[in-house]
């Protein structure tokens, strides 16, 4: 196995090269990643270490603070008590990711292949609504989806819906809200992957295959897979931990694990359990994402490698 900064060829295998170049090349990746790496070490890794440390503490806010006691029961209790919330969050999040991918793919396809000069402006147009604070957007959605708001009001007065029908405070509203808020995170990676596909490949594919769909399926789709995987990562993973949409748009029976962690932390001041639940969430996401990477068979099964590297 080649070590150091070996450049990967198109097939993913390390290339052989002159020794001198090899040595110089070996250091390149380290130069590239050191500023970001240092930042992440300080402001992400250290806090997460702190998180892991907190998750093994016990005590209480009124009992003289928290102390490190290898309290693995935080994890056991957490898993037992809150199983259903983990599962529900994953369910919601899978739906969200699937719908978001479905919604975003055609749009980014068109922008990437047919957008021309307007490409970056269209991209910007997709994102501008998200410059406005999520609180404002969610409140406006509450107006729009209100029982007698812009959508339900007319439908009800036309008799198409029963008077007592409401969208807010149901799982539908929560999933719709999360999907809406994460579309930029789905669309951008998809766009990035689609945009770099050589149009001539697509042309050639259209010649080779009998239908447009076949061309898409055999050429465009596989080439866009890294983007799909990135979109999945950036949507599914953070969406599972979301709490805002469930809090504002949800009702009884829509509580997600993010809300549980929120409550544990802020309401109960039970920092160790909150930390333990978070660690469980993160590791759970890791497992699911590696599974997905293997199924998808991405060229660079980064997460599989990470899981392997970490184990």
């Amino acid at each position, binding site marked *: 196995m080649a070590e150091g900064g070996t450049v990967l060829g198109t097939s993913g295998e390390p290339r052989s090269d002159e020794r001198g170049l090899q040595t110089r090349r070996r250091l390149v990746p380290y130069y590239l990643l050191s500023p970001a790496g240092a930042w992440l070490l300080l402001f992400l890794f250290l806090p997460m270490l702190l998180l892991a440390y907190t998750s093994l503490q016990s005590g209480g806010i009124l009992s003289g603070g928290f102390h490190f006691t290898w309290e693995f029961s935080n994890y056991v209790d957490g898993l037992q008590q809150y199983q259903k919330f983990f599962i529900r969050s994953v369910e919601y999040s899978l739906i969200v990711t699937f719908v978001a991918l479905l919604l975003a793919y055609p749009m980014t396809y068109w922008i990437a292949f047919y957008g021309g000069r307007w490409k970056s402006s269209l991209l910007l147009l997709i994102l501008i609504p998200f410059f406005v604070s999520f609180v404002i957007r969610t409140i406006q959605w509450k107006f729009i989806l209100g029982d007698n708001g812009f959508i339900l009001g007319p439908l009800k007065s036309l008799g198409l819906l029963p008077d007592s029908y409401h969208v807010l405070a149901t799982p539908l509203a929560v999933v719709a809200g999360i999907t809406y808020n994460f579309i930029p995170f789905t669309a951008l990676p998809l766009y990035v992957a689609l945009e*770099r596909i050589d149009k001539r490949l697509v042309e050639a594919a259209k010649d080779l295959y009998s239908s447009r769909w076949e061309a898409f399926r055999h050429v465009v789709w596989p080439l866009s897979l*890294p983007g799909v995987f990135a979109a999945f990562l950036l949507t599914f993973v953070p969406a599972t931990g979301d709490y805002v949409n469930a809090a504002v748009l949800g009702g009884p029976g829509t509580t997600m694990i993010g809300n549980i962690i929120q409550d544990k932390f802020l309401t109960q001041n039970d920092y160790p359990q909150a930390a333990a639940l978070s660690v469980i969430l993160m590791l759970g996401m890791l497992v699911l994402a590696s599974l997905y990477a293997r199924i998808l068979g991405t060229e660079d099964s980064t997460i599989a490698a990470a899981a392997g590297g970490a184990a």
Partner: protein
Amino acid sequence: MSAVATEPREVAAQEFAPINAPRKRLTRFLLPTYTWLMILYLTSPVFVMILYGFNAIPGDRQTPKFWGFTLQWYRDLFGVAGLTSALKNSLIVAPVSAVVATILGTFLGLALGRYWFRGRAPVNFLIFLAIAVPEIVLGSSLLSMFVLANSRVSFLGSVLPLGIRTILVSHIGFSIPFVAVTVRARVQGLDRSLEDAAQDLFANPVTAFYKVTLPLIAPAILAGFLLAFVLSLDDFVITNFVSGQTQTFPIWVFGATRIGLPPQVNVMGTLLFGAGLLAAVANVVVQRRRS
């Protein structure tokens, strides 16, 4: 080559005109319509927000009822204490955080997508964790860390007091992974032969990067920048924890929901949206000039 390839296709197109028509319809009509509908859908709450910025409400807290049109909230834009400075803070932090995170994240994404090196797996792992961690625990851990550091090492208290600096530092921190993942996805699919050619052409690897690699990954850099910008502008939970006494726009707005939002919030949102629109239009103009 393409000439030869298209000719038979065009002939085939004429022969199979009925089949061709739906194909044309797809790209010429359906897809773009769909895209614009999606953009409309994404913008719909913003339209409501713009509308309610003109709502002539009695009192000074927003209500769902629409009472009539007025410009008073535009006149009285800076009339709510704290809101203006909160917006200002957000408008300082977001671009700076986005720029720094994009630079750092791009290099990180490049390294991860292109090279095999020791420590690659842990770095990927760390990035993944950063995306997966619930904001509330990241925020509180950062706060605990800052507090701990400030109490143990006194000079840190003056370098990194809780406030704009800690907000900025935290925002850059959680934005880098998003940029890195986006750039990495792009780099993974790059055609190496182009870069090899560049290496041969240019003696200086920096020039090779600048002239060849950078344009190739430019869309990913732009996408990453936009992501980082939105992440920072919109962040509430982490910012709330590490901000000390400083307030940003989302924090202020969230706080006001307890009692009811003043309409000035809608106006400011409208202006933010307008600024974004202007940027998009300006971009189109620039692109036109280029071609």
